[in-house]
C-alpha cells in the first residue's frame, strides 16, 4: 500500500543535484539506515500485545452496542411518527366524528362583569368617541374647553365604575 518499493532514490536525488553528489548522498542514507538495522529496537512484550488485543475487543463491543442503539432509536422515532400520523388521519377523516366547526364551544369569560355592564360601558365609549370626533372636526357648536372638561368627567366616571365592578 505504500510506494516506497517503487521509489528510485537515486533518481529522486538527481532531481536536486548532480549525479556524483546524488551517489554520495545515497551512500550516506544507505549507511545510516544500515546502522539502524544493526541496532534493532526492542520488541513489544507478548503480554502487552495480548493486553492491547483485549483492550480492542472491549472497545469494539461498545461501538457495536452504540450502533445497535442508534438503529433502535431511529426505528423508535419512525414508529412514533407513524403512530402520530395515523392518529391525525383517523381524527380528520373519521365520518362519525362531529366536525370541529359544528362542535359547541364553551368559553369562560375572563371579565368579572356581566353582559349588562358591558353594554353600559359600550354606550358610554360610543358617546366619548362621538365627542372626540366632534372635537377633531372642529365643530363650532361645541365649546372646546367645556367639551374637554365634560369628556374628562365622563372618563373619570367610567374608570370609577370599572374599578367598582
Amino acid at each position, binding site marked *: 500500500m505504500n510506494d*516506497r518499493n517503487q*521509489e528510485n532514490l537515486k533518481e529522486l536525488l538527481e532531481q536536486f543535484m548532480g549525479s556524483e553528489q546524488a551517489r554520495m548522498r545515497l551512500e550516506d542514507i544507505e549507511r545510516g539506515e544500515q546502522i539502524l538495522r544493526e541496532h*534493532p529496537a526492542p520488541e513489544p512484550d507478548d503480554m502487552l500485545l495480548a493486553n492491547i488485543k483485549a483492550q480492542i475487543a472491549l472497545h469494539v463491543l461498545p461501538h457495536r452496542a452504540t450502533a445497535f442503539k442508534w438503529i433502535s432509536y431511529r426505528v423508535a422515532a419512525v414508529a412514533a411518527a407513524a403512530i402520530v400520523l395515523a392518529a391525525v388521519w383517523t381524527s380528520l377523516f373519521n365520518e362519525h366524528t362531529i366536525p370541529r366547526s359544528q362542535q359547541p364551544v364553551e368559553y369562560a369569560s375572563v371579565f368579572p362583569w356581566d353582559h349588562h355592564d358591558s353594554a353600559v360601558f359600550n354606550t358610554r365609549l360610543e358617546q366619548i368617541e362621538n365627542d372626540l370626533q366632534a372635537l377633531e372636526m372642529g365643530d363650532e357648536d361645541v365649546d372646546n374647553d367645556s367639551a374637554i372638561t365634560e369628556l374628562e368627567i365622563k372618563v373619570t366616571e367610567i374608570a370609577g365604575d370599572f374599578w367598582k365592578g
Partner: protein
Amino acid sequence: MAESVDLAQIIVGCRKGDSQCFSQLVDMYASRCYGYFYRLTGNSDISDELLSELFVKLVEKIATYNGGSFESWLFKIATNIFHDFLRSKQRRKKLLEVRKGQLEAEFTEYKKSGDEQIDKLQIQLKRLDTDTRELIMLRFYSQLSFKEMAKMRSEPIGTTLAKLHRGLKKLREIMEG
C-alpha cells in the same frame, strides 16, 4: 500486491467491527510502531503506553481511513500521539527524569564493563534534534517513501530529503566516530 489485498480485506473487517481483524493489524504493525515509539522516547514503559493508545485510536478512527497508504495514515496517528505526549508537561517531566536515570545507569554500566550490549544507538540518538530524530525514525519504521513522508509533514520533498540525509550522515559520524 497480494499483501495489499490482504491488508485491504483486514481493513474492511476492522470497519465492520471485527476484533479478529484488529488483532491481525496489531500483529502486523505492533513491532514497527513500538520501535518507532521506543527510539523516540527511549523508555519501554512509555512506549508500551503509547502503543496501547495508538491501537485504541486506530479502533476509534478506522472509519475515517479513506484508502491510500495505510502505513502513512497509521504513522500519522502515531506521530500525533507522540506530539501529544511531548506536549503533556507532566509526561515530559517524567520522561526527562526517566531518561536522566536511564543515562546515568547506562553510563555507570558502560564504565564498569564496556558492555557491547548497551544500546549505543539509543544514547547517540539523543544527540540529534527531535525533528531530525523523528524524521529518521519515521522513514525507518513506517517504510514510507519520501513523497509520502513529505506529504505527511507538509513540506517540499527536497526539504525532507535534505533533512534526512543530514540526520543520517550525522548519526553515522557519531556512531562510527
